[in-house]
């Protein structure tokens, strides 16, 4: 202990700087990171994203227009296999909860936009509870600027659960766990 107390001034400053740097890094890393289930509270800055998407017909879709509903914004891409894998879960959520004040919003991040997204949405069949189904929820086009309003995306799928008053209440990185998302949606309804 005496040795530490006798450290030269620059060593003390160095240690202090290292400590502050680690604290800052830790605080920053804790913003919007995933918990073991792949979910996390998002960064405070992105708690109420004010974004307007374009749908596949070119119409504006403002997230604020959905206030009053619980919304699950799902960032996905046609080339993303885990995104495709969770679409049956998303279709199931929309089937089960859309009449109860919930909607999904699929934000496609394909660089080619509508050209590849529209045919995929219209023609791709998924098996939901043993029945064939197509995507039954609104699809809009995402981009990096929009994603930055949500705190940015590291990868896809990434989903955000938004409360009835328009605030992000949970962020999910990677493929959704069906039991968890059902529980979380129900907790907001």
């Amino acid at each position, binding site marked *: *202990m005496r040795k*530490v*107390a*006798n*450290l030269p*001034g620059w*060593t*003390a400053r160095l*240690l*202090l700087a*290292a*400590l502050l740097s*680690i*604290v800052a890094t*830790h605080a920053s*890393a804790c913003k919007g*990171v*995933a*918990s*073991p*289930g*792949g*979910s996390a509270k998002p960064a405070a800055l992105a708690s109420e994203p004010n974004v307007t998407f374009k749908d596949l017909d070119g119409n504006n879709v403002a997230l604020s227009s959905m206030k009053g509903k619980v919304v699950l914004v799902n960032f996905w*891409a*046609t*080339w*993303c*296999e*885990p*995104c495709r*894998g*969770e679409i049956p879960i998303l279709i199931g959520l929309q089937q089960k909860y859309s009449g109860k004040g919930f909607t999904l919003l699929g934000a496609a*991040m394909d*660089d080619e936009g509508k050209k590849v997204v529209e045919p*995929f949405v219209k023609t791709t069949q998924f098996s939901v509870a043993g029945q064939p189904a197509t995507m039954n929820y609104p699809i809009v086009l995402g981009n990096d600027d929009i994603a930055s309003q949500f705190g940015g995306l*590291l*990868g*896809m*799928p*990434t989903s955000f659960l938004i409360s009835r008053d328009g605030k992000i209440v949970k962020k999910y*990185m*990677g*493929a959704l766990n069906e039991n968890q998302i059902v529980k979380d949606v129900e907790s907001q309804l």
Partner: protein
Amino acid sequence: MKLRKQLGPFVAASALMLAASLGRPAVLFAQESAAPAPASSVVKASTYVSHDPVPRGQEFQVAVVVNILEGYHMNSHKPRESYLIPTTLTPQLPAGFTLADTVYPNGELKKFPFSPDKALDVYTGSVTLRLKLHTEATASIGATSIAATLRYQACNNSACLPPVKLALSIPVQVAAAGTKTKALHPELFSSAGQK
């Protein structure tokens, strides 16, 4: 000196906290396991040239060794599904060079938690892609650089990173026809290294 004495206990406490926090990354990493790493840290590429110098009129090769972070994969050059983005290596050759062939390694068929019923054709670990090139009689003698673009799209067991176009620059020394040349990196370019 007085300040140093006053700081002493604080520095000692800081040191202890520093030591404690240095032990934290493993825990943090485990908690963040569902979050993908930044795309720039998942794939690293190194380039190698088969000969130095490369005399005019001679064939040579460029190897691009791609190291993929453990826990990640990228689609092979021939993914089984048409919607998946293949790995490609595209050279932008300066005047005096021609491309004879681009050689991609075979991928491996693997199943993932998000695709339990369907095996995907992927690269993992370290893979080597090669450009077979020819130096024409018109190539400028001296140092030059061959540009190439490695395009890939990587995923882990839960999420996918956006597609990336990685710009590569490969320095090549061109010499007059008939100049003595040294074969380099036999582990990459010999027939045994090209298995």
